């Protein structure tokens, strides 16, 4: 047995009182979970602590909280591991972010998480006619969607999403990962409509700021951001959806820019992302950026010659790589969640393997 101190954020919006922190000392084996610690505090010292939980085995997704500032499942975090990351030896437990608090550690999942899940039509829209017997699909295509199907709807990724922090309308990591569940499913009839909807939405797939927070947060290795990138890839490459948010244009401008220059030539990237220097879409953007451009020129951050000229040319090797890879009939993708890491290569790694890869080898 060991003693641990939990610092729990208490808040009851209906009381009219402000939130406050409360410390509880609990006694448990170090390998027991933070959830068990909270439940002990609730049983022994204060029955009014609000926490939602059910399975206690990282399956039901009910006990999402923030522990020492990091989102995760309280039942899936060992007390000793939490203590190792705690400041001043006190384990801090607070409700998840980006969602309103109902009471203490319980947040309103309906108001944010579930509303966004509903936003992406989270059900299979069958191709017609529906077969009389079962639908036959290839094994590979179903393995491909297992990663997103592993989601337990705990909301940890939503809690930490940095795009949602500044743009509450952002569809968000959990819902977009759910969307890939159907875009990647060969039985679904509405791939293009789903993608067009999410590409054209100013708060859709192109509003993800690529911060990796959701990948870090997910206790199940779903890697929502990677699924968002796959949605973008399919929207742009397979359906050629030119969205009004400049998402596809920016991606193609970048890819072509490096093909031409070998290095990224930023002076072209900005206007090309809007359709080119003289495109009606680009003009207001460039005019709006004029004070910034002027200051950059005044401070000799960039010179006009360097901005308008192209000092670098792509080496022939880079062009040949583009020719070979872009010339393939089918995209080659490696998903470590599914393949795992070669056994013989694992110890040779200077860096440990990704969480996703570990997930695949243990499940």
């Amino acid at each position, binding site marked *: 047995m060991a003693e641990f101190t939990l610092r729990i954020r208490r808040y009851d919006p209906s009381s009219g009182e402000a939130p406050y922190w409360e410390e509880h000392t609990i006694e448990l084996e170090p390998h027991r979970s933070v959830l068990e610690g909270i439940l002990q505090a609730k049983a022994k010292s204060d029955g009014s602590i609000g926490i939602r939980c059910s399975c206690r085995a990282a399956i039901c997704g009910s006990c999402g909280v923030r522990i020492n500032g990091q989102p995760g499942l309280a039942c899936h975090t060992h007390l000793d591991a939490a203590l190792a990351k705690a400041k001043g030896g006190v384990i801090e437990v607070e409700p998840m972010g980006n969602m309103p608090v109902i009471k203490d550690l319980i947040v309103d999942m309906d108001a944010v998480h579930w509303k966004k899940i509903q936003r992406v039509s989270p059900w299979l829209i069958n191709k017609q006619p529906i077969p009389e017997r079962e639908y036959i699909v290839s094994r590979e295509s179903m393995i491909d969607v297992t990663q997103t199907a592993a989601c337990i709807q705990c909301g940890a990724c939503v809690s930490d999403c940095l795009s949602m922090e500044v743009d509450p309308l952002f569809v968000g990591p959990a819902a977009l990962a759910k969307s890939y569940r159907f875009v990647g499913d060969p039985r679904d009839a509405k791939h293009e409509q789903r993608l067009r909807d999410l590409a054209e939405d100013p708060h859709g797939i192109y509003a993800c700021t690529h911060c990796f927070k959701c990948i870090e947060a997910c206790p199940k290795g779903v890697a929502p951001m990677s699924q968002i990138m796959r949605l973008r890839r399919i929207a742009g490459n397979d359906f050629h959806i030119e969205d009004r948010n400049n998402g596809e244009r*920016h991606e193609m401008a970048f*890819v072509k820019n490096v093909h031409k220059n070998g290095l990224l030539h930023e002076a072209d990237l900005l206007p090309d992302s809007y359709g080119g220097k003289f495109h009606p879409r680009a003009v207001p953007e460039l005019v709006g950026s004029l004070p910034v451009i002027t200051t950059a020129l005044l401070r000799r951050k960039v010179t006009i010659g360097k901005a308008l000229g192209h000092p670098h040319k792509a080496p022939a090797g880079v062009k040949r790589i583009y020719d070979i890879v872009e010339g393939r009939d089918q995209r080659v993708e490696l998903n470590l969640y599914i393949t795992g890491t070669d056994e013989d290569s694992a110890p040779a790694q200077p860096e440990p393997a990704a969480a996703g890869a570990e997930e695949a080898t243990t499940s």
Partner: protein
Amino acid sequence: MKVAYWPGCVSRGFTPELHGSMAKVAPLLDIELVELDRANCCGAGVIAEHSQELADTLNARTFALAQQEIDKGASLMMNICSTCQGAQSECQERLDANAEYRAHVNETLQASDGLEYEQGIINKNFLWVLVEEIGLEQLRSLVKRPLTDLRVGPFYGCYIVRPSARLGIDAEHPRDAYLGQVIEALGGTVIDYAGSHKCCGFPIITMSKDASLRQAGTHLADATDAEADCLVTPCPLCHLNLDLQQPLAARAVGRQLAMPILHLPQLVGLALGLEPKELGLQHHVVKPTSVIDWTQSVVAGVGAQAA
């Protein structure tokens, strides 16, 4: 030590002061930079969004070129951009994990340049090199002008801290705390504020401009409220949103902002005795007046003490 040096694109494009300051600081740290001048853009996650194989192959090419230098005596590959670090680590993770895939990518490299990537390259950002290769003790001993009383907020950039497993962050290598350790070793005061490990917003500046600027503005305002004199970042893309775009970010969050943003080699250079002009600080959009007394060219804290 000799390193195969990958400066990235932005350090030679819109933030030339980063490339310049690294060149000035390297000899003081006894780092010999062998620049990979034939290498290519890491893709910054955008090429991977278009085609994972294309990004992996382009970065395998850079790794293979670096390995040629490592064979000739360089200790490792070094970059000066959080985004390069993250994008390249992601590709390396796939290349190193799967021999079949690596062989497939190498086939393309063989046909394009006659190159081959061998599993297990060591590619470290300058920040990691400072702490893990040079060491904080050695760094401390080289300081000529300690950053006394200078209040510095770290700003890491997403790509160098997440996902932590991929970036080798663990109890032995707290790479997500290295900036604070370096600031302290240089004699400065570390400022704790909400945005240090958050996103600058740069990746969505062309798609969702308001959200992008609000991210930058929020972090700058938080750092201002925490009374930071400046921020330091190992990421030139963060520098673009935090410095170049700062006037627009200020408008987006309705705050007056004047937060100087230093590139990591600039902060190190100031402490090692280099002059602000040598480090290109005059090229910044937000003038680092709170850091530098421009009439005497000394770091503010020390200048105040000496007077």
